[in-house]
């Protein structure tokens, strides 16, 4: 069998090379789950037939993906390993408390590929809910496992899965700063750029092909946009004074940025090529941290125009405006807003009792909910399906990534062994979604 999985075609060789040069540079992120939801879906993930032959087993990745959402409870599969519908003894799984059973197998395919066949079986109706076959290069097995997890998630919850998305964040080790991109589970981390000066505020382009960020390499903050595949980058906002807080318009053509060259910190709009500068906000105070609504009609931002930093919303009208609607009223420090993809709520950092915590607020009802209980949370961003929020927090003086479910019931840490990790941003859904 082993010879089967080696690369024999040119195509396979190419994939192997890609894998080698994209190997993780740093320790993987580890996931810890604590806290728990009340009504989790009990699901059994039976190890797929022949997956032990692969360099990367499939079902542990699937299980970890599902567990991180806080929506599932894994049922022990010991003593039973069906791989086909005929082998599934539904009464047995009913006794174990499973609502659904996932079965599958891995079949060799040509050219360094394997075919992953799997089915989601409903225990109550003894029927198949979903069945799919994916052909994938043996170098992309984690990506394939995330795809399978997406299908299972979508089948059992009705929501779109986000396991095939990516995240960006900044890793500081010693005096080095790396802007990294990783899979949503923290694996396959790659540095997009490394430098000895700080990098903050990475923001994904809506199509997931570019990152905007702020670099201090010129002794002051400058906004850059970098293409991930080519690593080509350009300064989009490098005006006199400070340039920061990039946010993409939903059509990917413009960036909202914060500039200080005309006095104060104010929000401007600029084309992605750096042309067409236009002022949006006008206040005597600080206006920063813009976040576009999904329809592009509004911008949420942080402003201290009322005396303390609060979240405001202004329409994007094409001309500058001093008018904005204040949205947060609890406490005297509410910052870093990020719109949910349905445009109905936003996540932000709320300070109370000296703690900085992740909160969400409905825009219509103004109902606020605090989701975390740590000390120093920063930079929250919604998953593209709105079900989880990625943020940075601090443990023992070290910055780590954490994620919390939208209801606050499940939290998890994604940690690196050494170094400070901060400024996370959850990327968009892949194009094929």
């Amino acid at each position, binding site marked *: 069998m082993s010879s089967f999985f080696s690369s024999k075609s040119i195509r396979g060789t190419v994939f192997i090379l890609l894998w080698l040069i994209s190997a993780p540079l740093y320790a993987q992120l580890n996931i810890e789950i604590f806290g728990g939801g009340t009504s989790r879906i009990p699901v059994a993930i039976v190890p797929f037939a022949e997956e032990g032959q692969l360099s990367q087993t499939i079902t542990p990745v699937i299980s970890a993906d599902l567990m991180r959402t806080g929506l599932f409870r894994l049922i022990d599969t010991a003593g039973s390993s069906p791989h086909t519908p005929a082998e599934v003894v539904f009464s047995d799984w009913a006794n174990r408390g499973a609502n659904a059973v996932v079965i599958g197998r891995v079949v060799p395919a040509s050219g360094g590929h394997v075919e992953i066949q799997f089915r989601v079986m409903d225990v109550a109706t003894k029927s198949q809910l979903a069945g*799919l076959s994916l052909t994938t290069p043996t170098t992309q097995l984690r990506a394939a496992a995330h795809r399978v997890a997406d299908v299972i998630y979508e089948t059992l919850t009705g929501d779109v899965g986000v396991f*095939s998305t990516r995240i960006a964040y900044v890793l500081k080790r010693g005096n080095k700063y790396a802007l990294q991109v990783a899979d949503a589970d923290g694996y396959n981390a790659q540095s997009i750029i490394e430098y000895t000066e700080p990098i903050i505020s990475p923001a994904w382009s809506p199509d997931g092909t570019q990152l905007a960020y702020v670099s201090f*390499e010129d002794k002051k903050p400058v906004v850059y946009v970098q293409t991930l595949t080519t690593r080509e*980058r350009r300064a989009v906002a*490098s005006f006199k*004074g400070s340039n920061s807080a990039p946010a993409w318009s939903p059509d990917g053509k413009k960036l909202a940025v914060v500039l200080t060259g005309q006095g104060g910190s104010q929000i401007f709009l600029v084309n992605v090529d750096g042309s067409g500068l236009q002022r949006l906000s006008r206040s005597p105070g600080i206006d920063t941290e813009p976040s576009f609504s999904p329809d592009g009609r509004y911008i949420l931002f942080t402003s201290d125009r009322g005396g303390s930093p609060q979240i405001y919303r202004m329409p994007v009208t094409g001309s500058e405006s001093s008018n904005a609607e204040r949205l947060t009223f609890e406490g005297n420090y509410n910052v870093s807003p990020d719109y949910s993809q349905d445009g109905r709520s936003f996540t932000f950092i709320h300070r109370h009792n000296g703690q900085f915590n992740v909160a969400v607020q409905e825009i219509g009802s103004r109902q606020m909910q605090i989701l975390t209980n740590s000390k*120093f949370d920063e930079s929250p961003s919604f998953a593209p399906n709105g079900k989880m929020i990625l943020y940075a927090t601090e443990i023992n003086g070290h910055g780590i990534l954490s994620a919390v479910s939208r209801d606050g019931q499940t939290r998890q840490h994604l940690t690196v062994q050494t170094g400070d990790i901060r400024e996370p941003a959850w990327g968009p859904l892949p194009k094929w979604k």
Partner: protein
Amino acid sequence: MRKFLSISMIVLLSACASQTTQPDDEMAGGAGGDGMSGSELMGSGSGRPGYFNQLNDPSNILSQRSVYYDYDSYTVKSEYRELVLAHARFLRDNPSASVILQGNTDDRGSREYNLALGQRRADSVRNMMTLGGARDAQIESVSLGEEKPRAYGSGETAWSQNRRTDIIYRGE
């Protein structure tokens, strides 16, 4: 009987660049316009003006380059007034000299909001320098927010060191 939908998995070529890199030097200029120009921080090392001797003479007040602030404050305290005004006079008398003022904050709260707070500190020094005779074009006030702390750790000792504006002459 197999009822599998057959989907060919789209090959998820890693969309990211795989090797780490240093930024390309030529990218630094960027977009300018609207009267705001890109920065030209690093002057040449050779042939630097003679006034740098004055600026770096420890007995000269011009060698003092940091203004510190109270918690949550952006006003230049009276004890730093003489220092700031001395630099203002120097800039007035040396029209070819120019400075970048870097505002800094402690590390509590949002990085971007702290960037804006640090800007306020740098702007307070700029305003005082302008009143003291320096020309606007000689001064660029920027913020490093909480990103470049002078002192690490939490607690008032470290925080008070980090609430400051640094005065840096171009070409230094």
